[in-house]
């Protein structure tokens, strides 16, 4: 959008941290001329709890309940990556029971679904459209019901654990989850009508928030941001893990690299997650252990070593660099969350020239998540 009036005076403005339009506890310090952003700096630190450092002083099992907090909307990726990293270093990754691999993948896909529902709702919500985010939060809550049943909690699941998962699927879980999937599916056409076939959204999303493809490798971009450029990049396919190789799916791409294209990718990935979950519920082994029996997880010691493990979260590539030193605690964990790149470096690069009224929806579109920036 162009400026209707000319302003010579530069305005200095804080966007957040206490602003409903900011995606979480962070702020962007802006310098504007009129309503056009000239430049901006992101400020994080409001949420710093030092998870990485906390883990260095806790035994492996005590670190297990910490990592879920690195991502509120989608904690499971963190649980999975810490588990996988330590399992690899501890030499037990190959022994993780088959059933656990299926349940893990199921959980990861459920988490992607729940997170994508939320961000897609937020996308139009940030533009002032009420019904879609409300529906989306409701649908997400249905998925969280399933998480509650499965893991005992809705938000911080603390479910994927070293050696497998913490509990088996409850009786009748598959049926109830299928019902939720149907509820979501039933609502999807409505979302199309209200969102993608809505001129307000189209006007405010098509061509807005463009990310040039050259930046992908330059900045290590990933997830829907990249796929919305037509680049089929997805850790689930590129570096397949757990049971993804056994599932039938294609990487979803869209053209345009704008907010609209990214929303389309997400919309289609909701359908994809539903499909993957169905495949898993059908093909998953029904019997067998769901967790490896180790002499002790309390006194687990892991030899010296380091590893980098990655997974595709709804926002993009999540990576854990894990270093162990032969003791019962990690020497170092470095969490590579996509938001660090998308929400700090990329956002700052995109700010000049952005209209202030698009900032909120841009942040949603980049799916910035501060807790993961501030591990």
């Amino acid at each position, binding site marked *: 959008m162009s400026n209707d009036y000319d302003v010579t005076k530069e305005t200095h403005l804080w966007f957040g941290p206490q602003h409903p339009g900011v995606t979480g506890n962070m702020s962007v310090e802006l310098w504007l001329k009129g309503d056009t952003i000239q430049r901006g700096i992101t400020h994080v630190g409001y949420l710093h709890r030092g998870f990485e450092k906390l883990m260095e002083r806790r035994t492996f099992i*005590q670190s297990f309940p910490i990592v879920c907090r690195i991502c509120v909307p989608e904690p499971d990726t963190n649980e999975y990556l810490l588990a996988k990293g330590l399992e690899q270093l501890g030499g037990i990754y190959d022994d993780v029971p088959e059933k656990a691999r299926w349940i893990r993948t199921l959980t990861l896909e459920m988490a992607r679904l729940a997170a994508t529902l939320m961000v897609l709702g937020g996308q139009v919500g940030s533009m002032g459209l009420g019904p879609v985010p409300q529906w989306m939060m409701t649908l997400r809550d249905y998925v969280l019901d399933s998480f509650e*049943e499965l893991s005992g909690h809705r938000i911080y699941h603390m479910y994927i654990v070293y050696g497998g998962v913490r509990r088996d699927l*409850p009786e009748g879980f598959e049926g109830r989850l299928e019902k939720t999937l149907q509820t979501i599916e039933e609502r999807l056409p409505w979302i199309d009508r*209200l969102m993608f076939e809505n001129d307000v959204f189209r006007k405010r999303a098509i061509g807005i928030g463009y990310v040039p493809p050259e930046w992908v490798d330059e900045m290590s971009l990933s997830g829907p941001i990249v796929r919305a450029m037509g680049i089929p990049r997805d850790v689930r396919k590129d570096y397949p893990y757990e049971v993804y190789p056994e599932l039938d799916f294609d990487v979803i791409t869209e053209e345009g690299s704008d907010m609209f294209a990214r929303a389309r990718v997400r919309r289609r990935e909701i359908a994809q997650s539903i499909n993957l979950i169905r495949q898993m519920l059908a093909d998953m082994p029904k019997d067998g252990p769901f967790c490896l029996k180790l*002499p002790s*997880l309390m006194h687990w010691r892991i030899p010296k070593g380091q590893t980098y493990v990655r997974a595709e979260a709804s926002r993009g590539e999540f990576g854990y660099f894990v270093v162990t030193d032969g003791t019962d605690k990690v020497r170092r964990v470095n969490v590579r969350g996509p938001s660090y790149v998308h929400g700090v470096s990329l956002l700052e690069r995109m700010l000049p020239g952005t209209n202030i009224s698009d900032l909120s929806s841009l942040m949603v579109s980049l799916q910035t998540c501060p807790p993961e920036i501030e591990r």
Partner: protein
Amino acid sequence: MSLKHIITPFSAWVRAFTKPYTVPEAKTMRPGAPRYRGWHINDTDRCVGCGTCADICQNEAIDMVRVDEPVNGDAGLRPRVDYGRCCWCALCVDVCPSASLGMSNEYVWVDGDADVFRYTPGVDEKPWDESALGWRKDEGFHLFDPDRVPMPHLDPLERVKTWAEVVIGYAEEEARREAARCVQCGLCIAACPARMHIPDYIAAIRDGDDAEAVRIIYDNNPMPEMCGKVCTRNCEKVCSIGVKGEAIAIRWLKRYATERFDDLKSVIDVTRSDVGKGHTVAIVGGGPSGFTAAYYLALRGFSVTIYDELPRLGGATFFGIPKYRFPLPSLDKQVQLLEDAGVRIITDHRVEAEEFARLREECLAVFVGTGLMKPYRLGAHGEELDGVIFALEFLRDYHIDRPVEVGEKVVVVGGGNVAIDASRLARRLGADVTISYRRREVDMPADEEEIEDARAEGVEIFTQSIPLRVETREGGGLTYVWGPAEMLPAEEPGKRPRPQLIEGVEHRLDVDRVIVAIGQGPDLSWMGDETAHAVGDKRGWISTDEFGATAVDGVFAGGDLVNPVADAISAIADGLRVVEGIVKRAKAKQK
């Protein structure tokens, strides 16, 4: 801009007429999922206060608070949860060795007073105490393995043909795995008469430092290889993991650690301090109590001489416990370290009244640990017959290389460890063995594993069988006559039920030997009657103060003739107490 894209969104109005699927108010909220992680509950009868929940809680949300007096196997503590810290991770529930801790599926609790959000589940009453739903420990997920690493044994049919040790012992990897199961709660320490530092040495084994484990073990037990093989293991009986799973094999781990080192001096520092420098102490009896007193007194700089009438030290662990359970090299290794610590060892030397009197004169203190050497008599007709022998003498004679003769068929009368040892020894000498015991099998004082081993080796056990008399048989041999018993309720609560002979029924068993193993008592006659009466009671039992001092100045006592438990580790504990008593005496003398 297209007309379609302007109009389509308004179709959402249709949904205004569909039923909402959000709930109207908090009151209609559904209950939490069946495995919801809500407010804690605790089955306090089941909880043993081990504190493992508090250990694992990375938020330090749990304090162990005293709710009762500690008793054996229950610390008297219960977890108090602070919900200002708790993150509902439920690791506390998943780790709980007794599976007493759980979580209700209740998730709403509103109160204006912030302090109420810290309570002791199961002690402070809560509406969800009886909640059947919520997060509970699950059989498929373990923070430690509830099952013990199995101990390999020699095949029963093979082992009766040899004198080889029945228990093979853990390999290194097995020991590490077993040690890793320990949750380090320490309930065992209070149950061990010698208060051994059990969690510490288990942790050392777990972490691969066997030498450190042996050093920790030697801090208060100089016969650990013996204990590692034959201890009555009071510790394992209170192991918190044993409440739901199988107790840590504490005894086998101790055995593993000590067996790793042939030359104990390479690990144990026997440098003497000067606390007792210039003082002499005489120890009469080389059993575990005397052995222990001698070792630690020597390390404290006393000049110690230990006397035993048998050719080797070890007392009943040498002459009583058969070598397939506790082989001589294991004993000799321990004796070697005692010698290395500077103890003068005089074996094959019985101390008599005169010498005892002289020792009392010359030494700062004399310790009496002469054990129970006098077997109880059967009190049945025919017990004086040739071929009726005492188990204690049978075992002793065998171990000091005197000829023993069992014939082809043997009956062993009794149900304690001595009876089992005598029967398994007789099996190895080629006899068919039957045990005749007055009460039921569950009442047998012998270790249940021992009973099982004996049975596997072909020993037959008659229970509720009361000896009536022994007769000679024409053409040689004996007949053991017994009557069946019925069980009457115990006279006092806590006592065992009493066997009552069923009159008029007699069973007869033709045997070559009757081995009597119905107990043994002390015999202080070697001291001379006058001294014996001053030191002990009429039957020879001795009472002491908490430091092992008897009524006679300078005379200390310990072991079986003092404590009614009569096992090796209690004798060792007595030895430790006496060391403190004698050190105190030395210090008092120096003033």
